[in-house]
C-alpha cells in the first residue's frame, strides 16, 4: 500500500518534471536554420570542391598520381629557365570522391579543398572544371568566404 502510494507520487512528480522541461524549450532558440536564406558556415577541415592557387603549383604531378579515381588531369610546359609551368589542369567532379589525398600530397599547398557543398548542376558540362581559370567557382553558391 505504502509502496504503491509512493509509486504514484513519484510518478506524478516525474510527469511534472517532464512538463517543465518541454515548457522551458519554448524559450530556447530553435536549432533549425531556414536553409536557403540562412546557411551554416563549414568547419575548417571540411572537404568541398578541389581548388587551386595556380601561382604556387610546380607541376609535380603528385596530386594526379595520388588521385584514386583519376579525376585530375594535368599537362605542363617548360620555360627557358627549365622551370615547369602548368599548361592545363582539369578537374572532373563526376569522378571525385572527395578523399582529400591530392591536398595531402601537394608539396607547396597549391591544391586544396574549398567550402562549397551545394554541388548540383543542371548541365553535365559544368562538372568539368578548368582549375587554372580564376573565376571557375564564381557561379557556384558560396556558403562561406573563399
Amino acid at each position, binding site marked *: 500500500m505504502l509502496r504503491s502510494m509512493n509509486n504514484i507520487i513519484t510518478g506524478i512528480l516525474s*510527469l511534472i518534471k*517532464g*512538463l517543465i*522541461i*518541454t*515548457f522551458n*524549450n*519554448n524559450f*530556447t*532558440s*530553435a*536549432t*533549425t536554420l*531556414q536553409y536557403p536564406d540562412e546557411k551554416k558556415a563549414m568547419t575548417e577541415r571540411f572537404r568541398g570542391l578541389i581548388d587551386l592557387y595556380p601561382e604556387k603549383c610546380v607541376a609535380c604531378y603528385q596530386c594526379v598520381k595520388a588521385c584514386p579515381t583519376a579525376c585530375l588531369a594535368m599537362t605542363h610546359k617548360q620555360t627557358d629557365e627549365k622551370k615547369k609551368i602548368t599548361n592545363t589542369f582539369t578537374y572532373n567532379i563526376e569522378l571525385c570522391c572527395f578523399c582529400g589525398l591530392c591536398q595531402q600530397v601537394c608539396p607547396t599547398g597549391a591544391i586544396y579543398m574549398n567550402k562549397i557543398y551545394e554541388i548540383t548542376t543542371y548541365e553535365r558540362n559544368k562538372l568539368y572544371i578548368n582549375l587554372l581559370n580564376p573565376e571557375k567557382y564564381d557561379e557556384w553558391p558560396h556558403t562561406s568566404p573563399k
Partner: protein
Amino acid sequence: MFTLLNLTNMITTGIAVLGFIAISAMFLIWWERKVSAHIQTRLGPMRVGWHGILQSVADAIKLLLKEDIRPAGADKLVWWLAPFFVVVPSVMAFATIPFGKTLIPKDLNIGVLYILAVSSVCVLGVFMAGWGSNNKYSLLGGIRAAAQIISYEVPLILSMITVVMYANTLSMQKIVESQSHSWNILHPNLALAGLIYITSATAEVNRAPFDIPEAESELVAGFHTEYSGMKFAMFFIGEYTNLFIISAIATTLFFGGWKGPLLPGVIWFLIKTYSIIYILMWIRWTFPRLRVDQLMGFAWKFLTPISFLNLAIAGWLLL
C-alpha cells in the same frame, strides 16, 4: 411555431458554426504544429504566410486536389459513411456550447446529456472506418478506439455528473450562471472531477498519451490508414473539432465559461478554451504513449473508482 424567422435563424447559426469549425480546425492544426516545433526546439512551418499561418490552407488545397482512393475489397457503404459519422456529431455538439451570454445556438435544458449522447456517436464512425477499410491495421485501430472510447466514457460521465450535482441543472448556460462567484475548479471536490474529466477527455479524442488507436509506430495511422484526399481531411477536421469541444466543455463546466471581467464574454470563453487546448497540446508533445493494457487498466482500475468515490463524497457533502 415554426416560422420563416426561425428558419433563417437556424440557417445563419448553422453557417456561423460551420465557418467557425473550419477556421478553428485550420488554426488548431497550424498551432499544434507550431507548439510541437517549439517544444522540440524547431521552428515548424515558416514559409506560407507570416510564420506559416497559411500552411493549413495550402494543405487543405492539396488534400482537395488529391485522388480519392478506395481500397480493393472495402465495404463500400461503410467506408464511405465513416468520415461523416466522425464529423457530423462533432458539429452537432456545438448546438449547446455557450460562447456568450446570448451566444449559444440552442440552450437545451438537457445540454450536458445532449453533448454526451451526440459525442458518443463518434466511436461508431471510427469503428466503421476501421472495419470498412479492409485493412488489418485499420481494423486493429478501430477495435482499440472502440475499447478505449467506451472505457473512458465512464469516468468522463461520472466527473460531469459531479458538476451537475453541484449546479443542480443539466443546462450548459445555467451551469455557467452557477459559477458566478467562483469557478468550479477552485472547489476541491470539483477540482478532482476536473482533473479526471481532462484525463478521460484526452483519451476520448484519441490524443497522446492515449493515442493507441492511431499509434504510428504500431498501426501505420490506425483507422484512417486507407483514407486519402478530402475524406482524410474530414477525419482531421473531426479530430480537431472534438479537441475544441472537449476544451469548451471543460471551460463551461469547470472554468466559469464565458464569465470574466472587462472583456466581452465570447473573448473570455475563447481565451479559456484555447488555454486548455494549449495544455492538451503540451501534454501530447511531452508524454510517451501508453501500452494498451496499461491504458485499459488506468481507466477501469484507477479513474473509474476514484470518480465513483468523488461522486459519493459530493453526494455526502450535498446532503
